[in-house]
């Protein structure tokens, strides 16, 4: 009976914790210094150790909700769902008003809103009239935990970019083009440069981004030029983004 409330700790390294959270090791070190997220203990050799359940809890339910939705079309709370672009604009403006009131975000909140806006609007712009099943996006934020989560069950970046870059074959290639190549005078559609904007903002500000489409997952953080693209063991068709700030 004494063990009823006991949960065994599963200690993980800072690299493993960073991978789960989709942030860089340097970001986790910074979070430790600022007290945003501290390791559960330090090893004798001085390495930071985290509890896996602590990290998963930190990610919070928002990301879990979104991931389950893109993977399994599971039910999501209606307050996290925007069925159309106008609903998204309304919720985005509400988030803007909330972030505007946070003193330490006074210089960066327009950038956070613009980044979330570009990712969410991309979903609507690229899937309008082509949603494979559930239209609309998942959009939720937690100002206390400093996270914003967006997801869609759309065509995904590869299928969208293939319209103008038919030579692309993998999700990784598509993700790389989407985040790095400026597409000028694209025909028949001019849209598609928003993710370059997202990358620039993240690289210059205390913001990190985890973005997955298909089986390709990217992790961006401040002052990191590498896209850190890896293959995910849980592929899905649309897009999933976690912004931490």
């Amino acid at each position, binding site marked *: 009976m004494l063990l009823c409330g006991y949960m065994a700790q599963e200690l993980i390294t800072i690299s493993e914790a960073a991978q789960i959270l989709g942030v860089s090791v340097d970001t986790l070190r910074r979070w430790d210094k600022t007290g945003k997220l501290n390791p559960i203990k330090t090893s004798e050799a001085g390495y930071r150790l985290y509890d896996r359940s602590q990290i998963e809890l930190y990610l919070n339910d928002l990301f879990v909700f979104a991931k389950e939705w893109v993977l399994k079309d599971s039910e999501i709370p209606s307050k996290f769902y925007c069925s159309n*672009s106008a609903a998204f*604009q309304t919720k*985005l*403006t509400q988030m*803007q008003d909330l972030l*505007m009131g946070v003193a330490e975000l006074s*210089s*960066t909140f*327009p*950038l956070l*809103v*613009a980044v979330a*806006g*570009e990712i969410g*609007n991309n979903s*609507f*712009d690229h899937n309008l009239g082509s949603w494979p099943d559930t239209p609309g996006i998942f959009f939720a934020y937690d100002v206390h935990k400093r996270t914003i989560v967006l997801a869609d069950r759309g065509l995904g970046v590869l299928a969208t970019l293939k319209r103008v870059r038919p030579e692309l074959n993998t999700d990784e290639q598509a993700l790389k083009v989407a985040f790095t190549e*400026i*597409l*000028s005078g694209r025909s028949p559609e*001019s*849209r598609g*440069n*928003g993710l*370059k*904007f997202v990358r*620039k*903002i993240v690289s210059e500000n205390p913001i990190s981004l985890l973005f997955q489409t298909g089986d390709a997952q990217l992790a961006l953080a401040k002052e990191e030029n590498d896209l850190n693209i890896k293959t995910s063991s849980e592929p899905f068709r649309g897009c999933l983004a976690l912004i931490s700030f």
Partner: protein
Amino acid sequence: MRVELKKFGTTLISRQNGRESFAAFQPQLSALVENENLELDFEGVITFSPSWGDEFLSPLLKQYGPRLILMKTGNPSVKATLELLEKINRVNFKIS
């Protein structure tokens, strides 16, 4: 002619809204006389993004070239958006 962009909204984010704003702006543009500059003022705009900017500013840049003048602003989302639009259009904005 000086135009305050906040009249189109303070959160200028989506392509759809950018297109609608550009269409709504056309009657005002017809009042612009030959060789008159078109000055756009960002004062009061809270969030600005490349999607809205590409639909509104890019066609104005093509049409008016150096006659399009953007008023200087400290808003980081405006600055970052203008930098990207300059790369996309391969032309620099005239900023005053």
